[in-house]
């Protein structure tokens, strides 16, 4: 310890303090501040760039998600459209069928009606003809019958007997 104190050089101590403080001030001004600032700036830049990249990535993901959503929506819309179209088609076919059925029914009914009319007319005609023919036949029969006097009398008798007086 005594040797240490003995060896202690005040001059060296003095110079060390002066030189070190001077060096500290010079380095601070000309080296450390610019270096640390530059490094900080660089790190800040890297951080910002990374953040920007991250943002871009998120944006990208959003865009992808959006497009996917759009695609999904479009697909769903197509599905519904197809479904609707199919329904419309089915409905149209069903409608057409029903309409055709109704129309057919109507035609058949009209046909039946006209047939009925024709039939009635024909029957009426036949009846008339039958009546005429019957009158003619009766005329002819009567002529034949009423050729002799007896017969005529007889008929008158019959007819008179049939008449009931009230």
């Amino acid at each position, binding site marked *: 310890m005594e040797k*240490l104190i*003995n*060896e*202690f*050089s*005040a*001059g*060296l*101590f*003095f*110079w*060390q*303090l002066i*030189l*070190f*403080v*001077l*060096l*500290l001030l*010079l*380095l*601070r001004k*000309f*080296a*450390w*501040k*610019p*270096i*640390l600032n*530059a*490094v900080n*700036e*660089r790190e800040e*830049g890297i951080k910002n760039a990374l953040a920007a990249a991250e943002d871009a990535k998120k944006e990208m993901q959003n865009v992808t998600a959006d497009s996917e959503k759009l695609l999904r929506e479009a697909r769903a819309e197509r599905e519904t459209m197809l479904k609707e179209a199919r329904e419309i088609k089915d409905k149209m076919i069903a409608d057409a069928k029903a309409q055709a059925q109704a129309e057919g029914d109507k035609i058949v009914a009209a046909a039946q009606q006209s047939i009925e009319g024709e039939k009635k007319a024909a029957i009426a005609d036949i009846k008339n003809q039958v009546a005429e023919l019957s009158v003619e036949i009766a005329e002819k029969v009567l002529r034949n019958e009423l050729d002799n006097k007896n017969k005529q009398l007889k008929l008158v008798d019959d007819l008179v007997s049939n008449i009931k007086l009230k």
Partner: protein
Amino acid sequence: MRMIFLSRILAVFALIFTSVLSAKDAEPSNGETKEGIKAEIDAYIEHHLQDSHDFNLYSYTNDAGEKVHVGFPLPVILWDDGLKVFSSSKFHHGETVAEVDGNYYVLHHAKIYKTNAAGDLTYDEAHHPTNAKPLDLSITKSVFMMIITGLLLLWLFGSLARSYAKHGAIPKGLGRLFEPIVLYVRDDIAIANIGEKKYKRYMPFLLTVFFFIWFLNMFGLTPLGVNVTGNIAVTTALAILVFLLTNFTGTKDYWKHIFDPLGDGMPWYGKAIIYIILVPIEILGIFIKPFALLIRLYANMTAGHVVLMSLIGLIFIFKSWIGGPLSFGLSFAISLIEVLVALLQAYIFTMLAALYFGFASEEHEHDHDHDEAELAHS
């Protein structure tokens, strides 16, 4: 790094080569005893660990038996009734008396004493000179190395700073090598110990102290033979700066922690008894922390140098074919460890300084956040 490593290998080779030669020379001529050699090695190591007033690269004894020193003198600055500035070459490596403005000075064990014209020193019983010592503000070898290191740091990090301005965010050139270390100091030393909020104002000190210590430690491993960080005056100056910074930036909570460590956890009569012991310990702690810093760095670097030089000194002890390879192998291994220690000590000093700054700047509401953050980390 590689260059330093390479020069280290070269240095060991050169040392072994030259020392083997000189050993051969020395052996027949004066036939020193083993004890004598040991004493000489001890003196040499001690001389190396000390600061000196001239930059001595190496010395040898020439054919005429004169000691030749290769190096260059440094300015001596004394305050002795006025400023005295002269070249250290006037001392002739401590062999002659330097006369300046009618005053006489002599160099004895790297210290300058005022003497009479003949350069006589009087000693006390502990063999310390009793002569007057003028205030010595010389640019010594250590000061010189500090200036060199300072300029190197300014150039390196100044160019790194400029390269940011020139090339945008990506540094170019040699400075690039140090950017990760700057970031390491910021993230794992400053932010980890001081916290995100307040680390910024301590950054210049932490970075400067880290690179200053590291570079000087590395210079200590080169054949220049400097031992700046292994000098107690240097580490004391650094520790005092840490001490001042810690206590001047101390928050209310920091001082409260020292003078009222228990807070509201205990009624005053309970605290009174405990605080008689606790508060002095806390106050002592303020001084012990930086003191530990200065001793740790000083002792580690000095020990490294002593071990390395002793291993190289083995050559002179063994003086045989086994000495060279053994000394080489051991000192090479220790050198590698010392390269690690150079970095490690710089790291530890900076780390602990940051830790103390962290204590000083802590505030209670942040404290909890910090704890949670640490829990989350572990």
